[in-house]
């Protein structure tokens, strides 16, 4: 069965420092992987997606993620955190043609001034 595990429930960084949000996946086939962001009391916004093309995926707002099959990881990074990046981040595994998405537990990103 497909699953994703977000290794940190809470990450705190200072503004201007790098962000690393970790995600490992388990899949019986070549996965589609996504990162979504949820700002407080808002809906979810797609940050980026990996669908077996380039292993380094660039998303919106300066975020990127690298697919590493050998490590079964899909970590999200950003070189310099901004206060507006404070939010909940979800790593998501797609389940093929059904469109069913399997969500990780979420990582709360706190950005300190």
């Amino acid at each position: 069965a497909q699953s994703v595990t977000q290794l940190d429930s809470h990450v705190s960084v200072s503004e201007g420092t790098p962000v690393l949000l970790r995600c490992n996946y388990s899949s019986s086939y070549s996965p589609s992987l996504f990162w979504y962001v949820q700002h407080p009391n808002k809906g979810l916004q797609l940050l980026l997606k990996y669908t077996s093309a380039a292993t380094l995926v660039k998303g919106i707002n300066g975020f990127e993620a690298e697919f590493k099959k050998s490590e079964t990881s899909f970590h999200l990074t950003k070189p310099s955190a901004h206060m507006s990046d404070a939010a909940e981040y979800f790593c998501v595994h797609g389940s093929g043609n059904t469109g069913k998405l399997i969500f990780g537990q979420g990582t709360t990103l706190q950005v300190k001034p």
Partner: protein
Amino acid sequence: DTAVSQTPKYLVTQMGNDKSIKCEQNLGHDTMYWYKQDSKKFLKIMFSYNNKELIINETVPNRFSPKSPDKAHLNLHINSLELGDSAVYFCASGVVETQYFGPGTRLLVL
């Protein structure tokens, strides 16, 4: 223009009542979804419809019934509300796995 909209945004009701949440998308997608986010922010799919046909029906109580009058709308009706139904319900539409979410409906059952 809002791509995926939900009404109401907030819903406070008593146990045992019946309530509906409406969802509309103007993206032209054939597939729409309902997700439930619990108090720990865990998100899980409930249903999906493709062009008015039920595709995914997870292990959701029969009290929950989705209805799709056309491919731009997917409503969620909940009968006999229970305390455990309190959550945020998100509607989404998309093409296969790339989905666009609505702002959510915060349901509180007292």
